[in-house]
């Protein structure tokens, strides 16, 4: 196919366009339209002959229009002649577009933009916290309703979610805590052996796992596994207006969607923490046996001396609170999803990051609390 051209014709004020003026020729066309053949300023009329144009699409028509407008800016009067009948409609249509000058964003001071961003982020922290508190309050109110009328709890839904976040999470939670227990024991034995204290590995594994690591690892895993799922589910329901539909039916989305999820999480997390802690102790025991040469009955005897029920209590008491935080963050982030797929992704990420952060902060607060009451 030949190239599109725009050349000076026979008469001095005449231009001849020919060839295919289509998107397939976009590169050469754009160059053509950028370098206008100069016209003798004495002649006011510029005649552009289109009879040689074989094909024309929106891109070609627009570039032609651009040529015309640039000549008009030079105080010339361009006219089109020899327009093939089939292109007339398109050219007329294109003649009317892009008439309004584009609105340019005024250049802004870098420092001001930077300060504004800091300000917005700070204010955002406050609103984030307000959303979280509002969700906690809504869950509390809804729970109050259930306490007054126990039958209003969505039992089927709760059991279903318990199955999903509890039972189905067991294998992965047990596997990971088992490995972590083993790793702690191995590291302990390796370093304690240098000063002959490898027997104290049992104390370390026992106390660390029961008090801190067990509940923390399980909470972080649940935040990543179930919290993200909650946010994504509620978010896509929000996107598809399912939540609005519930509201218009006079049903409270909190009691139907949020409460069963949060209740399931609050029930599941202590159980998972217990199973996880046991798996971690088991892993630690195996490593102590095969790597440290400590027989299982010695390990168990030492463990009995080293840990008390208090350590176990400290760990397990934290679990439902962790679950509540994860559930409330996940659900409130889900409700904040807007129309786009991007916002769903953003909110899911925020949900996981924020709940892991809050879980660790809460763990720190609990540590201070338990220390002060001497547990």
């Amino acid at each position: 196919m030949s190239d599109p051209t725009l050349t000076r014709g026979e008469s001095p004020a005449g231009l001849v366009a020919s060839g295919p003026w289509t998107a397939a020729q976009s590169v050469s066309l754009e160059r053509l339209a950028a370098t206008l053949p100069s016209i003798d300023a004495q002649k006011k009329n510029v005649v552009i002959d289109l009879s040689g144009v074989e094909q024309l699409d929106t891109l070609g028509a627009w570039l032609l229009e651009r040529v015309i407008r640039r000549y008009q800016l030079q105080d010339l009067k361009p006219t089109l002649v020899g327009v093939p009948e089939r292109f007339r409609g398109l050219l007329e249509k294109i003649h009317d577009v892009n008439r309004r000058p584009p609105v340019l964003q005024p250049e802004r001071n870098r420092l001001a933009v930077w300060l504004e961003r800091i300000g917005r982020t700070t204010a955002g922290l406050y609103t984030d916290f307000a959303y979280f508190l509002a969700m906690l309050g809504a869950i509390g109110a809804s729970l109050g309703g259930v306490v007054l009328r126990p039958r209003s709890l969505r039992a089927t839904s709760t059991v279903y979610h318990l199955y999903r976040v509890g039972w189905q999470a067991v294998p992965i939670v047990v596997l990971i805590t088992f490995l972590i227990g083993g790793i702690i024991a191995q590291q302990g034995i390796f370093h304690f052996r240098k000063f002959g204290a490898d027997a104290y590995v049992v104390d370390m594994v026992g106390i660390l796992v029961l008090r801190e690591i067990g509940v923390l690892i399980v909470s972080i895993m649940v935040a990543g596994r179930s919290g993200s799922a909650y946010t994504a589910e509620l978010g896509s329901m929000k996107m598809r207006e399912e939540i609005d539909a519930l509201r218009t039916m006079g049903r409270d989305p909190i009691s139907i969607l949020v409460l069963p999820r949060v209740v399931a999480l609050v029930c599941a997390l202590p159980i998972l923490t217990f199973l996880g802690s046991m798996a971690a102790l088991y892993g630690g025991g195996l490593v102590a046996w095969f790597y440290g040469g400590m027989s299982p009955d010695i390990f168990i005897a030492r463990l009995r001396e080293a840990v008390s029920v208090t350590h176990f209590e400290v760990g397990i008491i934290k679990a439902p609170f962790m679950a509540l935080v994860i559930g409330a963050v996940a659900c409130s982030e889900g409700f904040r999803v807007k129309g786009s797929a991007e916002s769903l992704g953003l909110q899911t990420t925020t949900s996981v990051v924020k709940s892991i952060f809050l879980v660790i902060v809460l763990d720190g607060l609990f540590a201070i609390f338990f220390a002060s009451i001497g547990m």
Partner: protein
Amino acid sequence: MPEPSQAPAISVRNLTVGFGEKNVLDGLSLDVHRGEVLGLVGASGGGKSVLLRTIIGLIPPREGRIAIMGAETDYGDTAAMQDIGRHWGILFQQGALFSSLTIQQNVQFPMRENLEISQTLLDELATAKLEMVGLSPDDGNKFPSELSGGMTKRAALARALALDPEIVFLDEPTSGLDPISASDFDELISTLQQTLGLTVFMVTHDLDSLNTVCDRVAALSDGKIVEVGPIEQLVGSQHPWVRSYFHNARARTRATETH
């Protein structure tokens, strides 16, 4: 009228498409001539969308051949399909605009992927397309979730027209629009079809669209095209399903209104 030397825009021969045990389309044949607006009617769940999606390569056919602008499609050959794909633009039923891009970026997307043109020209062309479908340049900065139903359809049409395709597929373009927006949209399709010389393949249930926009109407029943021709021919058809489609209570009310 199409010149006899030219191959039809779309030519479907003995197409069979099915899922599991059931064949939704069963030996279907249909020609769409260049430069015409063909409306496809059929029962809900009767395979209209399946036919459309098979032609554009989203569903593999079990048997049969499809030719676009005289070129046989081979759905295994990705490069060849990309070439054929530049001949068509598709308006999906829900718009299918990319939700994380603005309308302007949505319209620019096919151009950016397929053409080597500068950002300035991209911006100008996208605005031109938006204005051609009746949206204002300001709407270009909005996100799809901020648009009304009618505007979504227009924006999606602008994206479908981004590469100046020869064929445009419209999947229920007026569904979900109020009668005024729907008739505006019909008019828009009609104008654009004439200015750009488009071939339009339209799946629709809207009797007004069939009357005002379509040159020919094809009726799909039991996996086959049972009747194809100008709307008058279909209204007078003796095929039981076509008869009941055009002579049910709602269709009769429409007819008395227009006459």
